[in-house]
């Protein structure tokens, strides 16, 4: 019988968390003043289809706000609107209390943006950092200090003298993110910043962002990676077809979408159907069992009770368990259910 230690541990202690997962930046002080506020924001590129279709939300100071959604859901369009690159077709948008349509430059002076697409000056890695710092008016000595710090933090020392276009995809992404930290800002917009990064660099990047958040930075970021949203975000919005279909704190969402836990099990040998029928009956209406061949996925509100019943039944029926895990509900479950896979779509209250 295989049992994943970390998940059994989480069941036995009654905790929802695995080691190292603190579920977001809970230590930072979140201000009440809105850094970004949007009311019924709509935007159409062609006058027919709306890339943003009535989006309303607020991002508070010191918060990490995640935007999730499939490709084409409207995340990047929303980032472009907030960073003044496009003007929404209708609705109200305020960034740092200012209207992007009329005070774009004043807003841009106080924000940082890491765009999804590659963007480099045709020079070396350290040249890119230097020139960018100069563009932001960072004094030379301070520029040099920050550059060296960032090259070390993002492990770019070995490629510092290579042209930014000649380095690997992951290194390029690191340069783009590091470059943004060359200047001070109040809000950082990150459009899929971890694409192409390996696990270690992804964690380094996320930790760097968390450090900055602790110092008061507000972060709005889009991602496809639900684990990192879970790791970093205070609140997330799930977008689909230009709308927010879910908007809440990560913990609330996980509770809302799953007071239940998931048990995955696989049994050995022939004729498991009689075992699964008996198990379904034994677990009762508080659990749902779906089976496929020798495997079953059980959703239950009481995993301890379900586990003991499973063990009892396997012993009584002489069935051998090959695999048994209990896992917490992840943001992925939330995402899949909210965009209409694995559950019905829920409108934002």
């Amino acid at each position, binding site marked *: 019988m295989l049992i994943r230690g970390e998940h059994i541990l989480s069941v036995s202690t009654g905790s929802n968390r695995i080691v190292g997962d603190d579920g977001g930046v809970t230590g930072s002080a979140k201000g009440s003043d809105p850094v970004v506020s949007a009311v019924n924001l709509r935007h159409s590129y062609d006058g027919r289809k709306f890339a943003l279709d009535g989006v309303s939300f607020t991002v508070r100071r010191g918060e990490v706000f995640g935007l999730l959604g499939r490709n084409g859901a409207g995340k990047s369009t929303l980032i472009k609107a907030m*960073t*003044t*690159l496009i003007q929404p077709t209708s609705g109200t948008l305020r960034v740092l209390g200012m209207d992007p349509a009329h005070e*774009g*430059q004043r807003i*841009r*002076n106080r*924000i940082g*943006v890491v*765009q999804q*697409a*590659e*963007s*480099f*000056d*045709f*020079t070396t890695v350290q*040249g890119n950092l230097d*020139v960018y710092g*100069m*563009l*932001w*008016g*960072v*004094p030379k000595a301070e520029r040099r200090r920050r550059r060296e710090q960032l090259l070390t933090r993002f492990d770019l020392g070995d490629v510092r003298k290579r042209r930014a*276009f000649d380095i690997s995809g992951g290194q390029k992404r690191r340069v783009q993110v590091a470059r943004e930290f060359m200047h001070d800002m109040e809000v950082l917009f990150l459009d899929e910043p971890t694409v192409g990064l390996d696990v270690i660099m992804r964690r380094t990047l996320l930790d760097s962002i968390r450090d900055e958040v602790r110092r008061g930075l507000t972060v709005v970021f889009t991602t496809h990676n639900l684990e990192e949203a879970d790791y970093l975000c205070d609140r997330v919005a799930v977008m689909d077809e230009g709308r927010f279909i879910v908007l809440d704190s990560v913990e609330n969402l996980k509770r809302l979408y799953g007071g239940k836990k998931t048990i995955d099990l696989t049994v050995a040998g022939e004729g498991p159907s009689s075992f699964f029928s008996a198990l379904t009956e034994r677990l009762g209406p508080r659990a749902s069992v779906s089976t496929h061949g020798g495997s079953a996925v059980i959703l239950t509100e009481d995993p301890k009770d379900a586990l003991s019943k499973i063990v009892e039944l396997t012993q009584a029926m002489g069935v051998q368990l090959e695999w048994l895990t209990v896992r917490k509900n992840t943001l992925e479950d939330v995402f899949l259910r909210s965009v209409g896979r694995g559950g019905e779509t829920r409108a934002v209250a």
Partner: protein
Amino acid sequence: MPLPNLLRLIYRNIVVNTDPGSLVILIGLPGMYLVFFGFGFQSVTSSSGSGTSYLAFLAPGILAFQVVMAGTVAGSILWSDRRWGMLSQLLVGPFTRLQYLLGIMLTSMLFGLGGAVVMLGVAYALLGTGPAHLLAFGVIFASITVGSIFFGALMLLIAALVKSNTAYNSIQILLIFVVNFASTVFYPLSNGLPVVLRVLFEVNPLTYVADSVRGAYSGALTATDVYQMLFLAAETVVVLVLATRAYMRSNVAYE
């Protein structure tokens, strides 16, 4: 104290776009024209018994030619920034679109003036003589400035309107060829030219720059040269406005 936004953008354009390859094209190509065409055709005019030094005629023309090269710098910067993602990155930075545009324009003007200084040195080395009066230098640099802005704005207008880099490059090559060879840079406007070519010569802004630079260089500036430059200044304003409008409405992303 940090530099003003515009100066930062100009500095960035110079640092990022000044690689050896660009410099060779910007300064080397006009220099090669001067040497190869100058000495090549000099031998033809000498053997035909003409008393005119073709090299002396060509040198001010090549000075004027710098404005076209400067114009290509402007279009190239815009396209490079669009292609490599820096246009949208700069526009989410502390700059306005207009500042970005002016940054490019002034950078190309500086390239034009810098190239003209180098060409003045080369011409002096080859001819052993240069403009006689300080005022002549003023006229030359004023003409180069206006011409650089005109061609910079023209290239920006094209860069803003054209949807692909390949198309832009093709248009640029064609434009450089037509503008150069249908002007008084390489040969004087003659009554023997076919009418179509003659008209092309007369409406070509590079002709205005070449004539005024040549007039100042040789100390024979005429009223026509002055009127031509005033006309060019007016044309420059029009092209500048058109380029600004096209650029303001253009998509910042590379397609």
